[in-house]
């Protein structure tokens, strides 16, 4: 029991715990749709690309979270624009944008004379999260969860069968655009705590594990949140006792949960199984 409570005696660890829980909830709620719509590579590009906004915001002395958000929105807008070119597949455009913005971020951050290290943003600094960060994340994350629950039905229709969805009145493209913005929000709230690389982990891995087990969307979302929070808190605990990097440890725990889930569900996905009807 001491193993569980000892780490959280200091207030900075309590803040780290809160920040991790917020990400553990919000990332899978959005990640469920990222996984279902096979947008994980966009999440990856988005998380790397926000580094440009982070770097420029730092250089300008603005809160980096605003910079990250701005870069995310810009990437989303450019993606929509470039995707109208039929010669290039969307995955090509995504890779070009993601790496270009990442490169801007690396160049800007390495030229800064503030001694800010790139690794701070790639892997996060969960131990130095402030109450201000937490309130901001709570507001942004809460808004994201509200948007997803308000649009739950629309997301379901647009994601399963976008043709039918349009026919019955769903604004499929608007839903897609909102989802891309939510993706940027997740990256932003992950930035300080787990970093941009681990943001993708939290976005995709818990939702992917949940996808293997869940029968319907509500289940998948709830399971994703359970996995996300469990992996976040578990990773934080393990990292405390092993003195390892919190962000990377959370990522490892998430990967381990996915591996176990995959193994457990393997027999179920075998081709020969009985259908209850006709």
């Amino acid at each position, binding site marked *: 029991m001491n193993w569980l409570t000892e780490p959280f005696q*200091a207030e900075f660890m309590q803040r780290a715990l809160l920040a991790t829980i917020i990400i553990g909830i919000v990332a899978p709620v959005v990640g469920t749709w990222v996984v279902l719509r096979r947008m994980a590579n966009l999440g990856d590009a988005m998380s790397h690309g926000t580094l440009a906004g982070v770097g420029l915001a730092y250089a300008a002395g603005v809160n980096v979270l605003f910079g990250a958000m701005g870069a995310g929105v810009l990437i989303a807008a450019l993606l929509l624009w470039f995707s109208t070119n039929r010669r290039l597949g969307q995955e090509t455009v995504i890779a070009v944008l993601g790496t270009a913005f990442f490169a801007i971020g690396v160049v800007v951050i390495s030229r800064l004379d503030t*001694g800010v290290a790139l690794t701070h943003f790639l892997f996060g600094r969960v131990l*130095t999260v402030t109450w201000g960060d937490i309130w901001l994340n709570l507001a942004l994350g809460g808004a994201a969860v509200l948007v997803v629950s308000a649009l739950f039905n629309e997301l379901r229709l647009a994601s399963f069968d976008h043709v039918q969805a349009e026919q019955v009145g769903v604004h499929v493209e608007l839903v897609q655009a909102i989802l891309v913005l939510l993706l940027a929000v997740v990256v932003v709230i992950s930035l300080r705590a787990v970093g941009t690389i681990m943001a993708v982990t939290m976005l995709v891995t818990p939702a992917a594990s949940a996808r293997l087990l869940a029968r319907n969307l509500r289940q998948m979302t709830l399971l994703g949140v359970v996995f996300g929070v469990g992996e976040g808190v578990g990773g934080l605990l393990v990292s405390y006792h092993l003195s390892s990097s919190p962000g990377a440890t959370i990522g490892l725990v998430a990967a381990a949960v996915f591996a176990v889930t995959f193994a457990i569900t393997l027999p179920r996905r075998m081709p020969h199984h009985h259908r209850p009807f006709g």
Partner: protein
Amino acid sequence: MKSGLVIATVAVSVIGSCSDAAPTTAGERLRVAVSFFPIAEVVRRVSGDAASDEIEITTLVPPGEEAHEYDPTARQITHLEDADVVFFLGNDFQPNIEKAIASLPGTVVRSDLLENVEMLDDGDDADTHVWLDPMNMATMARTAAQVLSDAIPALAGTFANNAATYIRELAELDELFAVGLSECDSTLLLTTHRAFAYLADAYRLQYSAIAGTSPGDEPAAKSLAATVELAAQNGVTTVFFEENLPSELAATVADEIGARISALATAESLNGDQIAAGETYLSLMHRNLEALRSGLSCR
């Protein structure tokens, strides 16, 4: 050995002047390259007025750049090869610069100013901020005077005088520190990164750092918790962070124990504003002393 090198250097610089397109009026100035700010300060003070007439000093690390990881540009390495004398700090303080210096032709005089400086036995992740002990600066000034005198024997007297003046100022600073920090309520100096071991050692302060020596270092959660406990036990009221670096880590610890945070200069580089304000090593150290006296509650 050293004089042999110097003769070779002088010879090369003479030959150089024949082929150079734009020789100066009174023959070639001595081309001196220095690695970063404290070294530049020492060399500039020792060469004094001669600096403008007889010696041309260039600093590798530009203003405001991080000194440890600085990677010299291709153009800088070309210039280094043309230099007569290079002053630097060895011991892996600036690995990239040291690598570049190691590959220079034998004609360039290389002077590691750590020579004669007494190093602390500081374990694996050793602090290299030797210049934060003013008396180490004095040692470096003596070495620099010697090397410069060997390069331009005619100015040996000037260099010796300049060095003596600077060393006197450094000794006064040392005295101010020793007296100013002799009676403090708190004797534990706590900083973000491990950069003030030499300063703490010189003035008999206990020293602890939240993270390792590199500005990118992050503590593990457990060691951060241990630091918080240590700080609380020692009644730390101020946690120091390095000027020009993020203060979050210091703020995190200060927050836990209800302390405040305060900046200390590592004096390893000046940013543009500081240069414009005419800051020097001595002025930075005077401000450090004030910050320390207030942060450690000294009388």
